[in-house]
């Protein structure tokens, strides 16, 4: 089996299995505990609405904090949106997802995807620079923070190496023109999938739970989130 077949076959399935099992295990760590019954008289019983308000509202920084957080928040926005554009908008990725799931959608123009790569690349470097230089971030950062950064950066770097020679447009060939860089890129993505549930990248699903629970609690009390 060559490297590409390995990356497209057993490695992909194994990483997806670990992603799934790890996510279930991590969620079980939370949901195995009882939700505390609260006997206090609620000010509002619209808890689900409160949870959603917190989940959605949490994406918009509050005016009161704008001065102190605009830079960091904007940068975080850049790489989150950038990554989403690359993963879901770049033609080869759309093909890849279609092969895997049967779902497909029209890709974004290549130029937009390349722009997103550039922006995300710089933005991730800025994020790392913050982490290395800001006294608060330096103090609170652990192995997880640096490793997770690396694990996100790696597919971006290997992906950039796999861009050339250009992917022929029109159809998805079974064998890319440069199989080894593509295989390495795929393996790096698989590494990300494997790590995701175990470290802080799990915030991709924990964010709904954590924000939602706070939102429901605040709704119960009639307080703002």
């Amino acid at each position, binding site marked *: 089996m060559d490297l590409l077949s390995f990356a497209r076959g057993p490695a992909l399935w194994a990483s997806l299995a670990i992603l799934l099992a790890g996510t279930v295990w991590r969620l079980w760590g939370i949901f195995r505990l009882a939700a505390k019954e609260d006997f206090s008289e609620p000010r509002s019983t619209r808890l689900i609405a409160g949870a959603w308000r917190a989940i959605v509202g949490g994406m918009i920084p509050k005016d009161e904090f704008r001065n102190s957080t605009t830079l960091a928040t904007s940068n975080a926005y850049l790489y989150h949106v950038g990554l989403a554009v690359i993963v879901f908008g770049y033609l080869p990725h759309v093909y890849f997802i279609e092969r895997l799931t049967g779902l497909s959608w029209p890709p974004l123009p290549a130029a937009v995807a390349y722009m997103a790569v550039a922006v995300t690349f710089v933005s991730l470097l800025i994020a790392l620079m913050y982490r290395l230089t800001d006294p608060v*971030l330096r103090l609170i950062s652990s192995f997880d923070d640096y490793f997770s950064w690396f694990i996100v950066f790696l597919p971006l770097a290997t992906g950039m190496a796999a861009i050339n020679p250009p992917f022929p447009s029109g159809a998805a060939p079974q064998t890319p023109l440069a199989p080894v860089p593509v295989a390495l890129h795929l393996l790096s993505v698989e590494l990300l999938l494997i790590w995701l549930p175990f470290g802080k990248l799990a915030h991709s699903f924990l964010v709904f739970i954590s924000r939602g629970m706070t939102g429901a609690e605040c709704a119960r009390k009639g307080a703002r989130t």
Partner: protein
Amino acid sequence: MSDLDQQHPLELDAPRFRVRKPQLRVDKQGALDDAARVTAALGGFVRDFSRATAAHMEACVHCGQCAQACHFYVTTRDPKYTPIWKLEPFKQAYSRQAGPFAWLFRTLNLKPEVTIEELEEWQELIYDSCTMCGRCTMICPMGIDIAGLVGLARHGMFQAGLVPHELWAVAERAKREGSPLGATAKVLKERIEWLADDHDVEIPLDRPHADVIVTLSSIEIMKYPQSIVAMAKVLNHAKASWTLRSEGYEATNFGMLSGNAEWQRESSMKMIQAAIACGAKTLVLPECGHAYGALRWQGANMYGKPLPFRVLHISEFLAENIRNGSIRLKQLGTSLTFHDPCQISRRGGATQAPREIIAALGAELREMPSTGDLNWCCGGGGGVVTIHRADDLRYRAFEIKMRQVEDTGAETLATSCANCRQTFDDGQAHFHWDKKMASLLELVADNLAV
């Protein structure tokens, strides 16, 4: 008097209530050995873990934004005051022993074991530098309830005997005498008698039946007795059938603030039982922030079922009675700025009640820039005002508040928490500041329309 009272006598004439400065830098209670303290701290921390607390323990992305919301970080720029860092040993212990990947963390030694030295170092972070104001949750992109987690960490620290002495002494005294500041039932009765006499106001105590049971904060009883008079005036004006009860009048809860869940329950149960005994339909809490959190939001859980009466903060009671016409007010005609007590507004949800009252008083409300649910804490909540060695830190945090108040240019400054009020009084004395904190309840009582 117990040994403790002699070791740490209360300074009743000081600008705020406190015990004499203890010499030790790190305070310890009891005779547990170091290993037992570490075990007790973690055990106490996770004992009351719920689904929500576990979610919050798991969710941090180490973005550091919470630092920008905390008055202790913002005024010192010392990274150790970053809210989430205050929980570091507890996070570490959680990952190693209680989290979903505990076995992995232990086997690979990914997180070192928590040591007694760390816990001692963290005593300052868990107590002196967190007022449990909850402002950090408002900035946190993951919505983590850090104040709630600090509350649980305090459970652990209490079990481990690692509480700052002053706070411990005050909590112990509350447990022993029924009041943290010596406002025993006998003292209360005497005070009520002279206040009723001096001010010619009826203050019912121990009526067998009443619709409304009123509770007080020891700080009011001992330091702001005019608040009791104000309480009586407004309730009489509203023609309420009300009473104080000597078996359950103390609303402060130092068991909760220090981290002793059992003492917290005992304090709450006294009020609950007193309310039930006199058949009250409503229990009114005094101008005290943490008393609101303790009874309004945690009381029923201490009781184990829904309370058979409503719990209202005095500001909610006033707003409700102004709305229904039972309380009529004269117009104040001044400009006023309001300091939100964190536990009543942000963490209590009763943010609008004081604003309704201020509108009814006809005062021009000049809001501070970050206000209501996003207010800055006065720096003295969560028991911090009792802790001596935290004074300098607290004064720095207080400077934010002073600046904000000054910037409004308002003539009057009011709040609805006696603990905030004593923090302001102390800050005022320290900075020789010419602004005096007023009580919203007293403003109302002084302006009742006859």
